[in-house]
């Protein structure tokens, strides 16, 4: 049953849609905010999976885009521009510009060097944000309220915001699905498997990879815009390299190169964090070895594991 590729994402989104209903019975605003966060980071993880899983571009600076999107929203808001559209356009434009410049340089390098140069650009973004004295510097910037939808405070309602984020997640998922299935996406995957052969049949991978990098960056910026809206706070910590590492962990944990695996990974990561930290403040002592065990014994992440047990059942 789990082998059907369409069923898992549908099931996943249905489950997410049902979370606020559980809130009706147990009146738990905490649950709502936790899952809003899960979905926002899932959007960022999907965007990373797009270049990581389908283009083999291991970006170790992806959190920079979350930060850029968040700061675009926060800085505009601090100047009185609180409209949804203005914030969104600014977040997308800023992250696209950053992705275009850094991508054009980074994609000249390969393999480990690519990992490290994206890390370098991520760190540059981090220190730039920390130096923005007018916008809080190290301490970050508090945003007065969530973005206004045509002047109304619709998004202030947590349930409305939750469904807006869910709709965004589904939209981003479908968009990436379309990109991966398109001719563009096939060139990208071909360049991942064998760049020389792609070139031999007449495709120069560079513009395709750059376009994918910019798209992923913009989606990352979009996730940052949502995050700033949820927490009503923006800080350089959004861009720290540990955050970029966590995004990679989410993608691999869920199952790389499947898009919905990134959603599962983001959910698993954040829920495990919540659950384990309920037992002990030293939850990382448990979580760390779990990551090692996942790598050693669960190849293909959670999705790969599910496929294997359902495969075993079907004989």
């Amino acid at each position, binding site marked *: 049953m789990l082998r059907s590729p369409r069923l898992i994402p549908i099931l996943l989104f249905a489950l997410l849609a049902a979370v606020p209903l559980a809130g009706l019975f147990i009146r738990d605003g905490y649950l709502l905010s936790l899952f809003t966060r899960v979905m926002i980071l899932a959007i960022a993880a999907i965007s990373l999976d797009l270049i990581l899983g389908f283009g083999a571009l291991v970006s170790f600076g992806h959190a920079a885009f979350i930060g850029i999107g968040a700061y675009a929203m926060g800085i505009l808001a601090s100047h009185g521009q609180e409209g949804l559209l203005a914030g969104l356009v600014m977040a997308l434009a800023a992250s696209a510009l950053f992705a275009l410049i850094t991508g054009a340089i980074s994609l000249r390098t390969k393999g480990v060097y690519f990992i490290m*140069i994206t890390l370098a650009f991520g760190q540059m973004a981090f*220190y*730039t944000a920390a130096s923005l004295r007018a916008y809080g510097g190290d301490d970050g910037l508090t945003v007065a309220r969530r973005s206004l939808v045509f002047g109304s405070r619709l998004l202030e309602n947590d349930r409305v915001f939750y469904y807006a984020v869910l709709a965004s997640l589904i939209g981003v998922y479908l968009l990436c699905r379309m990109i991966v299935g398109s001719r563009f996406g096939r060139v990208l995957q071909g360049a991942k498997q064998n760049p020389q052969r792609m070139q031999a049949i007449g495709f120069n991978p560079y513009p395709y990879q750059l376009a994918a990098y910019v798209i992923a960056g913009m989606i990352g910026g979009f996730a940052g815009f949502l995050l700033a809206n949820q927490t009503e706070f923006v800080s350089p910590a959004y861009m720290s390299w540990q955050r970029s590492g966590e995004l990679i962990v989410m993608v691999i944990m869920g199952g790389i190169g499947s898009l919905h695996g990134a959603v599962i990974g983001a959910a698993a990561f954040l829920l495990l964090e919540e659950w384990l930290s309920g037992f002990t403040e030293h939850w990382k002592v448990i979580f760390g070895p779990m990551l*090692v065990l996942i790598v050693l014994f669960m190849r293909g992440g959670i999705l790969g594991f599910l496929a294997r047990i359902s495969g075993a059942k079907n004989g």
Partner: protein
Amino acid sequence: MNTTLFLIQCLNGLQLGVLLFLVAAGLTLVFGVMDFINLAHGVQYMLGAYLAVTFTALTGNLFLALPLALMAALALGLVLEVVVFRHLYDRDHLEQVLATFGIILFLNQGVKIVWGAAPLSVPVPEALQGSIAIAQGVLYPVYRLAIIGSGLAVALALHLVINHTRVGMLIRAGSTNAPMVSALGVDIRRLFMIVFGFGAMLAGFAGIMIAPILSVEPGMGDQILILAFVVIVIGGIGSIRGAFIAAILVGLVDTLGRSFSVDILRSFGMGPANARAVGPAISSMLIYVLMAAVLFFRPSGLFPAKGR
């Protein structure tokens, strides 16, 4: 900008560079020979510092603690190799990143459980306390000079081992073509283990040496890890010579940038208030700009190991 300050900051930069080299040397060898990304290399530096704290408390002297802590760092490195890392050599880079990230989380937190979350310190050994005049009217702490000296000595020893011994030859051969070395009858797994243990010990040595002048705290390895990665990427992965030159370069650029960025910006005609606001950000960024620039012109670093 006066000459005394400049001289002192140059020495500070050299000291940071030497320290970075000790961490980066192990990282670049492990990376070059085994093609293994070890994010957990920074925690080995942290463990070295904590071991120095414990053994100094036990023996009452850093000189006595040094060999004990080095042995313990080596042992811990080998344990990690046997339990986890050797199962990861033939996995792809992403899985290595994930697993070693898990180890960072575990050890950073484990250190908090064992030694507590508060920063610890180690006294500077009596023989190396105080300052000496290195030029007319310029005083410099003896201990920092000792770090520079011992780091340079280790670099020289490493150079001799790598270039003039049989093990060194195997390591060089391994970083060029590991399968071929294995096919020629060398036990490559044992070579890996030696390289790994040695790298862990060097990182531990850096941690032990720095413990008296830095506060020893959980997470102290993360920052140096990123710097060490910057160093090995600038130097060219797998190259000890590249790591050494890049380490000194990064140490100097970072230290001098931090002390003089505001002055330099002002000399370019920027107002004092602006310069003070922008200076620190630019100086934190400087080494990353350096790395991006190096990779832009030489996509495999300054001294890439041959055959890669």
